[in-house]
């Protein structure tokens, strides 16, 4: 067993272990962190297959952005996890069925094609970069499509703002211009009163 196999089995074990933990741990924060770990292990397996761009994107986008967002949501919403854990026995048969179907599908694909039909990719020369190749393709052949996709993102931003940014009556909002103009007399009222201690 060579170094590559050792690395593969190591990260696969971590991946499977952390994926199992995502669904079994009680604390949702731990679940999100285990999901981060499983994404990271998956990224390392991508690296083994010389797909360094995918590996980096997986870490940057999923771990760096999506999961952090997830963490925010989990922390901000006080999710009561106990009701979610109910009915484990009731849902178990369905879960097993889905797991069995997926395992069967994977088995059929590998069994009909054979593992030999999916060899390890040949290592590319050292100066070869997936990122450069993808960039070349995106900015030459698919330039037009790339630009249209960018416009779609712009529309998404405009639409999101147009639909959420509005002034409803009765909502409390800050007006910084008025806040900085406030004077002491607007906030503090001096009251003359007799001191309590000296009376008796």
């Amino acid at each position, binding site marked *: 067993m060579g170094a590559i196999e050792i690395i593969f089995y190591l990260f696969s074990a971590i991946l499977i272990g952390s994926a199992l933990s995502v669904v079994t741990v009680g604390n949702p924060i731990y679940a999100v962190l285990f999901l981060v770990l499983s994404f990271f292990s998956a990224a390392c397996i991508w690296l083994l297959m010389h797909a360094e761009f995918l590996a980096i994107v997986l870490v940057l986008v999923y771990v760096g952005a999506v999961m952090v967002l997830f963490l925010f949501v989990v922390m901000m919403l006080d999710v009561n996890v106990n009701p979610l854990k109910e009915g484990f026995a009731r849902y178990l048969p369905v879960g097993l069925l889905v797991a069995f179907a997926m395992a069967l599908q994977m088995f059929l694909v590998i069994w009909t094609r054979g593992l030999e039909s999916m060899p390890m990719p040949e290592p590319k020369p050292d100066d070869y970069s997936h990122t450069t190749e993808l960039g070349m393709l995106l900015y030459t052949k698919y330039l037009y*499509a790339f630009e*249209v996709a960018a*416009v*779609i993102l712009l529309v998404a931003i*405009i*639409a999101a703002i147009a639909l959420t940014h509005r002034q409803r009556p009765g909502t409390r909002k800050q007006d910084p211009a008025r806040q900085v103009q406030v004077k002491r007399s607007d906030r503090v009222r001096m009251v003359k009163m007799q001191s309590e201690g000296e009376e008796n």
Partner: protein
Amino acid sequence: MTVAELQLALPEIFVLTMACVVLLADLFISQDRRGLTHLLAVLTLVFAAILTLRVMLPPGEVLYAFSDTFVRDRFGDVLKVFAYIILAGVFVYAKHYLRQFNLFKGEFYTLSLFALLGVMVMISASNMITVYLGLELLALSTYALVALDRDSRFGSEAAMKYFILGSLASGLLLYGMSLIYGATGSLNLADVSAALGGGAGDSMLLTFGLVFVVIGIAFKLGAVPFHMWVPDVYHGAPLAIALFISSVPKLAGLALAIRLLDNGLIGLHGDWQGMLVVLAALSLVLGNVVAIAQTNIKRMLAYSTISHMGFMMLGILAGTPEGYAAAMFYAIAYAIMSAGAFAVIILISNGDREADQLEDFKGLAKRNPWHAFLMMMILFSLAGVPVFLGFFAKWQVIAAAIGAGFTGLAVLAVVMAVIGAFYYLRVVKLMYFDEPEHESAITAPVDFRAVLTINGVAVLALGIFSGGLITLCVSAFV
């Protein structure tokens, strides 16, 4: 990429730039001078039309750009020019409505211009990726437009339905495209067509892919049985948005069908023809029959759209240049008529509520004879009464269906057109033979009245002199 390639896409680049300019300029325009945004948007359309017409290609010439993802041909040019003209009309109609209902915001113009860009990308697509991206650009903009009136419960509900069903349809279309890619090895429509001509591809995979693509197209056109979203969206959306959805995107729907089915999958014509026959027949029957039962005129026009899309498919399913020209003529005619019909509803609405009930049309002839007359012409045209535009449109597609050997379907279309005439003529009866329920005068700004008059007269004039428009459509498919 060369300068020549960029020049081919000049209208698209211009519309994109101006959409961004409108977006930014609108920030600095105060609410009482919002008319400037409107003016800027209309000017954008005028100059886009000039840019498109400046290098209008002669019939038969096809130019590709950006590694064959963009195509410029006469079909696209003609369709784009009509999209500009109709959208300019929509802007004028919408301004009056948006003012009355406190929706006069810059976002309407920005999102509409981006939707137009999506329509243009779809019209000029020669690659399945570009088709899909154009479709998504149009769809995302319209989802947001439908929800523009945030205080309307119906608007939000309609937007939600539209979004979910629309995303589902996009997903199906994308799935079909990926299967076709798997079978033919190319996303480029010309290459797909060549591969199919060479007998390449797993026929099972191709058939599955084709089914998904046709379902996606039918969803976007609103053909039965994929029409569920149409009545709810027309009903729930603000009138100005329903006006927009019922006009310009129909041209894009036609382009979507022609680009995918003809430019890409003509090798499978025998397969998709059968599917379109079923879709067209169901749309014709259900659209016309259910429209009779409607008391809300927006819903009635929605079912009328479904039936009109059935008519349009009669032309597409023929699979011949004549058939496509007929379908193109139908799409343009329908967009013009539909814009006019919605404009009259806007005209009789006032700031309190939309006049979307049939009763609101009672005695319109007494309250406002000229506009009632215009509405009558538009309704006659939608029904397909001779000498009006709609008659020649129906004639063309039915002739195309007969030419393709579908006499039974053509007979069904004629019968359904007669049944459909009932609900259009019912509105005419309400306008001319019923007493008005209230006497208040109907007023509209002068630009609104001018465009509505042009629109109504165009329905008659383009009908009497339909030869010019027909020649233009035929020249697109040489």
